[in-house]
């Protein structure tokens, strides 16, 4: 479904993606992991067209996405930091995003699930970090799209919201969606991910199931298995 071909990206002198090749098939949850600064966000942002690669190509359902924008109607993205215009209220923001996409949205269900009813008419500038993240979640999941990209979705969420988030993700997976997640929380990976994509030095260092990773690193605990992979960079 998604194919990255020989992707290169430099920021000044810093090489972030160095000839990365990756194929992601339709359906399932893919956890994109890697140490800080390994290029996870850059990879995701190049798929979204926010970062423009120096070299290489990205295909979505067989079509190149570079320099295009309408393909984004078929994907939902949850950015890492949620910061909205402080003078808009929650409901105005939701209506605005709905207005921008020619698609049906089911925001009511999500607002109820995440307990946002009381905040709908509050200004976004007055909300706490966790509540903003919940608004962010509503904006991401209210559309029905084939591909869902989540960049650190758990940031700032309380335990109940986290449980709801996991439920939402599982439900979306049940509908046959493809979901990409980047996170540093290993319990989330262990609970949700079907496959792990491990980035190191701008390349794919490992791709496969959690079991395969545990076997390869000879480690029963996922956290330690990942630490094992990362430690190779520090060595």
């Amino acid at each position, binding site marked *: 479904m998604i194919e990255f071909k020989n992707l290169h990206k430099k*920021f000044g002198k810093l090489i972030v993606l160095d000839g990365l090749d990756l194929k992601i098939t339709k359906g399932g949850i893919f956890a994109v992991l890697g140490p800080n600064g390994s290029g996870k966000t850059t990879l995701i942002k190049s798929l979204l*067209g926010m*970062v423009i690669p120096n070299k290489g190509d990205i295909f979505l359902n067989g079509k190149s996405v570079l320099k295009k*924008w309408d393909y984004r109607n078929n994907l939902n993205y949850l*950015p890492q930091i949620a910061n909205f*215009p402080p003078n808009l209220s929650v409901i105005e923001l939701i209506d*605005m*995003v709905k207005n*921008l996409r020619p698609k049906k949205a089911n925001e009511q269900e999500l607002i109820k699930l995440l307990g946002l009813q009381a905040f709908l008419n509050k200004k976004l500038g007055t909300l706490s970090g966790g509540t903003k993240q919940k608004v962010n979640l509503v904006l991401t999941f209210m559309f029905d799209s084939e591909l869902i990209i989540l960049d650190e979705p758990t940031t700032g969420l309380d335990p109940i919201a986290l449980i709801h988030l996991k439920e939402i993700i599982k439900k979306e997976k049940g509908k046959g969606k493809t979901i990409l997640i980047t996170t540093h929380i290993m319990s989330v990976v262990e609970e949700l991910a079907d496959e792990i994509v491990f980035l190191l030095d701008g390349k794919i260092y490992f791709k496969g199931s959690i079991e395969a990773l545990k076997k390869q690193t000879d480690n029963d605990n996922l956290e330690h298995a990942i630490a094992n992979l990362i430690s190779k960079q520090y060595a």
Partner: protein
Amino acid sequence: MLKILKYSFFDLMRSRWSYVYFIFYLALGFVLLFLNNDLNKAVITLMNIIIVLTPLIGTIFGVMYYYNSKEFTELLLAQPINRNKIFMGQYLGISLSLTLSLVLGLGIPFIGYGLFKSAVIFDFSLLLIAGSFLNFIFVALSYNIALSTDNKIKGFGYAILMWLFLAVIYDGIFLISLLMFNEYPLDKFSLIATMFNPIDLSRILILLKLDISALLGYTGAVFRMFFGTSFGMVISIFILALWVILPVFRMNFKLKKKDF
């Protein structure tokens, strides 16, 4: 694009600073008319303020809006919209809301004072047109600076420097060069040098319409011959428009390669 424009516009119209700006002009208009008791004189004083202040406010609003809405812009970039349209929408949103504050803030006191019945209505409209142009020009210039500078503090610094250069330093250099080369014919040089600074251009444009150009001496006569005619007027407006179009053009060019 219109949707983004609409939301940027409403977002700004609801912010405290738009009100402060609007009320400032409103108060300024009333105070000037109260003190001067003369529409004509008030227009001259206003010109001196507008010519310096609108560029400064446009510059600050432009960089501030860009950096403050960065994360939100990223959210928009992930939506199925062309990125040029997002930025054009924001740009027009800021410029229009600033222009609205200017036009309403000054318009209300002047209308209350019988603007429509007086002869200065043309001068006053020219003042507002020049002020609006300055808004559009300086928001575009500051957006260019912000787009090219990821560091917020640096971006702010460059933007303020740009304003300082065009509002103050340019005139200084201009004056010094006039003094240094005063043995040469300088009328063409001064005409052209004026064109390269939107603030100077608007100032001269308004001054010459105000019939006080006699104060400017020989150069004033040359300027009057040029700007005083409708040809000069059309050229000046055209150049002010160029000052909007070129930065906007560069903005769109820059956006093609920009990473977020």
